[in-house]
């Protein structure tokens, strides 16, 4: 996909009056969901520009570390897209993704991360409209939830540096 037109669309579709724009990192599998996103693009569908798509060969390639790192580096939500059950190009990569996703969701819940910030969707190559629907829905959901890190909570690394200074009692 060409880069500049994509940037242009993003500035046009930001709704006025809302300061917070969610950043969503999306890991899409090469064979189904990424192809569907491509289809959505060539079909001139408009979807929320808040998503940054990363193509991976298979949803089974997605290490839970990728998701955690995305949050660590400022993502407000993470979307995983893979082939429908039974359709995986590598036979069962998407099932592996499903199992990791289920356990990762529970880990994230314990760490205070809201349900809606991580989403897994099966999207076939022909379902460009589903790409649009899921991205739009998720963007709205995360707009409601607000930023991943509230501004007063420092990221861990930064806090470590600050901690040497005396801190007022909370």
């Amino acid at each position, binding site marked *: 996909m060409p880069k500049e037109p994509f940037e242009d669309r993003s500035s046009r579709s930001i709704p006025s009056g809302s300061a917070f724009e969610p950043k969503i990192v999306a890991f899409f599998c090469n064979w189904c969901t990424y192809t569907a996103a491509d289809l959505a693009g060539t079909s001139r569908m408009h979807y929320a520009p808040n998503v940054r798509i990363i193509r991976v060969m298979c949803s089974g390639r997605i290490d839970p570390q990728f998701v955690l790192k995305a949050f660590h580096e400022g993502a407000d939500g993470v979307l995983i897209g893979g082939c429908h059950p039974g359709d995986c190009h590598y036979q069962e990569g998407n099932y592996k993704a499903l199992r990791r996703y289920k356990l990762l969701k529970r880990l994230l819940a314990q760490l205070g991360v809201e349900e809606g910030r991580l989403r897994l969707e099966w999207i076939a190559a022909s379902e460009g409209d589903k790409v649009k629907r899921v991205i739009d829905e998720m963007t709205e959901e995360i707009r409601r939830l607000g930023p991943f890190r509230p501004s007063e909570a420092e990221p861990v*690394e930064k806090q470590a540096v600050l901690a040497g200074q005396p801190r007022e009692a909370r």
Partner: protein
Amino acid sequence: MMAEAKPKVAFYWCASCGGCEEAVVDLAEDLLKVVEAVELAFWPVALDFKREDVERLPDGSLAAAFINGAIRLSEHEEMAHLLRRKAQLVIAYGSCAHLGGVPGLANLHDRGSIFQYVYRDAPSVANPEGVFPQERFPAEEGELELPAFWDTVKALDQVVEVDYYVPGCPPTPKVTRAAIEALFGEGELPPKGTVLGAGTRALCHECPLNETKPDKLLLEGFKRVHEVIPEPNKCLLAQGLICLGPATREGCGALCISANMPCTGCFGPLDRVRDYGGKALSEIASILNSNDEGEIERALEKVADPVGTFYRYSLPRSFLGRRIRRGDRP
């Protein structure tokens, strides 16, 4: 001519259980060789030196400072900075200094909720006057100052620059000996950031039960340790116990597994893994032999406490580091 001065070494503990200090004593007779090779300039658990003694030393005059324990209090952080200034090499010794350790699980809470539970809500507490720890207290002899309790527990390298790590909860005598040899032996110093004394492969490689691990491991479900008496001499993971050996650095000699307990990951991640818990979670989830969503959920319920299972020793050093706080100030 004076004999060549022995390198000066400091040992210090921050938020730790004392197990790492015990591990040094566990060197047994080899401790005498250590004392022969180095001069102990500071070791509060065993020798009567004070902080002032360290402050008086010229900067960089210690060859090495071994620091164990996590950073929980302002005092820990001050001591870490002081020892960093005085020592040429700072070594994070043991899981807590390396990755945050068991005390790091307190990052599921914060100062306020910890104080409320420990000094007010815990069933064994009687505190009718509502006394909570203070950083300053006016005593008859003058104002007393106590260390501040941070909201977030940190690993040593989140506070000061760390040169080397010695893994383990606690590091075994073999690992400690190998680390001391790497630092004070004949050869060149290893590259900065190296995890000393342990290998670079997964624990399975040195596990005596590895031969019985099937090539393709698929499980119908998991079992918790109190639910089964494991068969001896058979891979614990293959028996459905959550053994984190495949995600954990080798070096301990599979001590827990030899006692029929699965690996809980105290040696931490392999070199190319940044977030131990993410990798260990991936290991366990991937080997579940089910494609059915409901069945997967039911099987994974056996992982009763995902954070406590996968981040038992490494929550502060993970990508998220702590429980995300929201609505602290409504």
